[in-house]
């Protein structure tokens, strides 16, 4: 069941169309990855859906409420973890989180319990009384993430949650996001990190220049690239033309590249289904395999497939928009 539905959502800043007729549907309880380079329109979309800014055209239904007509009701359902931590330098993590919990309506007892629990969870308990200006970038980010973990909103917008976070911290935050989802929140994850979107998201929407290019599960998106899976086979003997012809006859196989007579690179789809058949083919032909390596396309490949650019190139072009 859709919890967010956008209808031709558009945001224009003077000559720049930041979000261009965005129509998408996000299901309740899913982690929806909004993937795209900087300047793609992800953050603007998040700010519109959370009623921080108004769309120029179109609208969205969040929960059962129209963002244009019932912004106060929408804000009761949502919580945002901003890309850049929104913290005043004179405050302390405890002050920030305690006040946030109060505004979100937590009772005194529950508030104290949850603030302590989350601060410990994000390893900030020992730093709770330090001024924000004395914290590192990663610590500030953890305080920002902590806000939403304390709030546990029905719909959580999380914008680049692991920027400025080290590898260990990233995995911790990913686990927290999954826990948040498991507790009943719908998560909209805006990110330009392809791996993050891949490992966390149930579905991914790829944005570029304010438009939604494609939207589906990571697996379906990867499978949509014709011949995106690659199998590299090293044989102990040279391969015959008959075997090659039989291999090319598989409907999932797109291309067979003979690197050497005993070294093949096969471009195909649905690698997990085809590989057993490939192994059987070589085995039946009396061709022992000395090594086999499989690789699936990444979301990076998906992005290149749909935009013709790598995410880094798209970022450079986006910045000059």
């Amino acid at each position: 069941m859709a919890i967010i539905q956008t209808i031709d959502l558009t945001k224009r800043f003077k000559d720049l169309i930041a979000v261009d007729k965005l129509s998408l549907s996000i299901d309740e309880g899913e982690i929806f990855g909004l993937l795209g380079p900087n300047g793609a329109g992800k953050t603007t979309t998040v700010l519109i859906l959370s009623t921080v800014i108004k769309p120029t055209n179109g609208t969205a239904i969040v929960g059962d409420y129209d963002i244009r007509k019932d912004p106060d009701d929408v804000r009761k359902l949502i919580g945002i973890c901003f890309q850049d931590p929104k913290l005043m330098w004179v405050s302390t993590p405890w002050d920030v989180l305690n006040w946030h919990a109060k505004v979100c309506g937590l009772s005194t007892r529950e508030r104290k319990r949850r603030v302590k629990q989350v601060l410990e969870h994000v390893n900030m308990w020992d730093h709770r009384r330090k001024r924000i200006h004395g914290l590192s970038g990663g610590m500030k980010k953890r305080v920002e993430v902590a806000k939403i973990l304390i709030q546990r909103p029905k719909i959580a917008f999380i914008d680049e949650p692991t920027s400025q976070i080290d590898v260990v911290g990233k995995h911790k935050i990913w686990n927290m996001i999954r826990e948040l989802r498991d507790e009943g929140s719908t998560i909209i994850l805006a990110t330009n990190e392809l791996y993050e979107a891949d490992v966390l998201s149930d579905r991914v929407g790829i944005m570029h220049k304010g438009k939604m290019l494609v939207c589906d599960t990571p697996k379906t998106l990867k499978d949509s690239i014709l011949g995106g899976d690659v199998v590299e086979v090293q044989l102990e003997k040279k391969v015959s033309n008959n075997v090659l012809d039989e291999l090319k006859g598989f409907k999932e196989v797109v291309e067979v590249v003979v690197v050497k007579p005993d070294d093949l690179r096969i471009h195909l789809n649905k690698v997990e289904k085809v590989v057993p058949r490939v192994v059987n083919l070589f085995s039946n032909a009396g061709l022992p395999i000395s090594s086999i390596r499989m690789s699936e396309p990444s979301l990076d490949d998906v992005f290149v497939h749909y935009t013709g650019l790598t995410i880094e190139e798209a970022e450079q072009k986006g910045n000059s928009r």
Partner: protein
Amino acid sequence: MLLVIERDLRRFIQFKFIIILRTIWFAAQVAFFGLIASRMVVPELADIYFEFYVAGVVIMMLYSASVFIGYDIFEEAEHGVFEYLLSLPVSRKELVLGRSIGGGIRSFILVGPIIAITLFIIGLANPLNLLVAFSALFLFAFGISGMSITIAVTLKSGDRFDIFMGVLSALIVRLSTAMYPQAFVQDANQAYAAFSQFNPVTYASDLFRWGTGIERYLTMSPMPLAAIIGIVIFFFIFTFVGVTFYEKRLEGGGWQ
């Protein structure tokens, strides 16, 4: 809305440095300028002018403390906290009204001890008058906070706001009865007098002096009704009209 007010109060207390400096400023104005300037008037009125001046300085301080909320808005915009506040489950009206009231209350917290010292210096003539005057001063502080917020979101630039408020303060304080009685303003220039007569700082200064009993030396008016009405109108304009204007700008993303 109470939580919005609480937040502003907590933030203000965190700026201890500003509170200390403001208190030093008040002490210097009273101990140096007030004492020396009161020697310039005829000797039999020197003490009265000193009391008159001290009461005016209190209002000047209340004014500048209430204006401070506008600077907060720019600091918050710089740190992106504005977006955070707008995403909270708080209506825009509650947010803006809360900030306006929070700005007013915190200026009273700053000026409160100073008012106590002033009353100690001047003495308390009539508690009922003082209560009426205090109520009006609350409205004055909320109104000035509302005005500061409205100007801040209109100008959308910290530098412009700083310069504009400097000029406005120079006009609104100098062309008021904060430092000199209306009769002298009238003597100097009719246009000055007209401006001073319809100036919230004049209303606040007159009311505070009336509340503390100093005004009895200056006018025969039993109740400065015009000042009370003036402050109430000022409060309504900048609290409600200002709030509506601010709200519209917020909803439209006009703060960006």
